[in-house]
């Protein structure tokens, strides 16, 4: 019993190592790309829409409204990034109930990659919306002495984002494995059901925290005259 699917190596050739994380990540990606291509191939704007188009519309619309409520600005700019993060994490957590599938989010490498995407997106969105100077100046607030702490806060919340998702998904898998050894009849199924709920909530939280971090990086634009809102929460 290992701690992550990284150790489960399928194929090894010189420095190229194909492990379970890679395989299942590509499977999830292929599933999502294929699914959305099949659904969006024939969209209709009439009263009769296919049920899968209905499903996608519900997901996209709900994501839009949530982002708009949290970031308090036009959600169109965030929607592709935040929506992809949410859908990828949610799909890989949900597929975890299929026997043999190891969620790629249960590996620290995947979650670190996702957290680094958020880490890079915060200055990108901030700089494009506020300009280079004003964005960098916010690190010197409230006083230049706070510069190291602002930088440390930026790094530690990225670490927290990665370890939180990894710990939650990994703990779900471990608890099921331990219960299988103790009470193999009913309880693993109950814990797997609970794992579905946790998986969706974790995907939601990852997306919300990414939105909050990005919005706090570009906050001065929307309320230039008013006072700035409270500091961004760190996990």
């Amino acid at each position, binding site marked *: 019993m290992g701690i992550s699917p990284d150790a489960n190596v399928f194929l090894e050739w010189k420095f190229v190592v194909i492990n379970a994380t890679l395989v299942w990540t590509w499977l999830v990606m292929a599933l999502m790309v294929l699914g959305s291509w099949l659904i969006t191939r024939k969209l209709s704007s009439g009263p009769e829409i296919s049920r899968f188009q209905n499903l996608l519309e519900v997901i996209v619309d709900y994501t839009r409204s949530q982002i708009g409520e949290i970031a308090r600005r036009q959600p169109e700019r965030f929607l592709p990034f935040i929506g992809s993060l949410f859908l990828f994490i949610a799909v890989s957590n949900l597929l975890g109930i299929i026997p043999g599938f190891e969620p790629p989010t249960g590996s620290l490498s995947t979650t670190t990659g996702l957290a680094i995407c958020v880490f890079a997106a915060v200055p990108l969105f901030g700089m494009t919306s506020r300009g280079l100077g004003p964005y960098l100046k916010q690190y010197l607030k409230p006083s230049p002495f706070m510069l190291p702490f602002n930088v440390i806060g930026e790094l530690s919340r990225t670490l927290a984002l990665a370890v939180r998702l990894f710990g939650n998904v*990994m703990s779900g898998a471990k608890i099921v494995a331990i219960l299988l050894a103790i009470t193999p009849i009913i309880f693993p199924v109950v814990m797997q059901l609970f794992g579905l709920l946790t998986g969706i909530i974790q995907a*939601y939280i990852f997306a919300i925290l990414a939105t909050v971090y990005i919005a706090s990086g570009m906050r001065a634009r929307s309320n230039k005259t008013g006072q700035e809102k409270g500091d961004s929460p760190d996990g």
Partner: protein
Amino acid sequence: MDSVTLIGMASIIAAGLTIGIGSIGPALGEGRALAQALQAMAQQPDEANTITRTLFVGLAMVESTAIYCFVVSMILIFANPFWNHVVAKAGG
């Protein structure tokens, strides 16, 4: 006792203590947060959506301290660097 036995013993005891002590605080905090959220929802049912969303995000943040403890104890049991070092030295 040789060092392998000592490291194994210390790791297992430390893993149990880590998750045991580390989950006390988050459990108390989560219970308190949930009680407050229920109270707020009973007083203002219209705001239930916002309260629930904030509650989930807050719970996840409170819970992350317990998750850190869990990750540390899992590392102590399954991927212990000291254990690996000693075993590698003994083998090679």
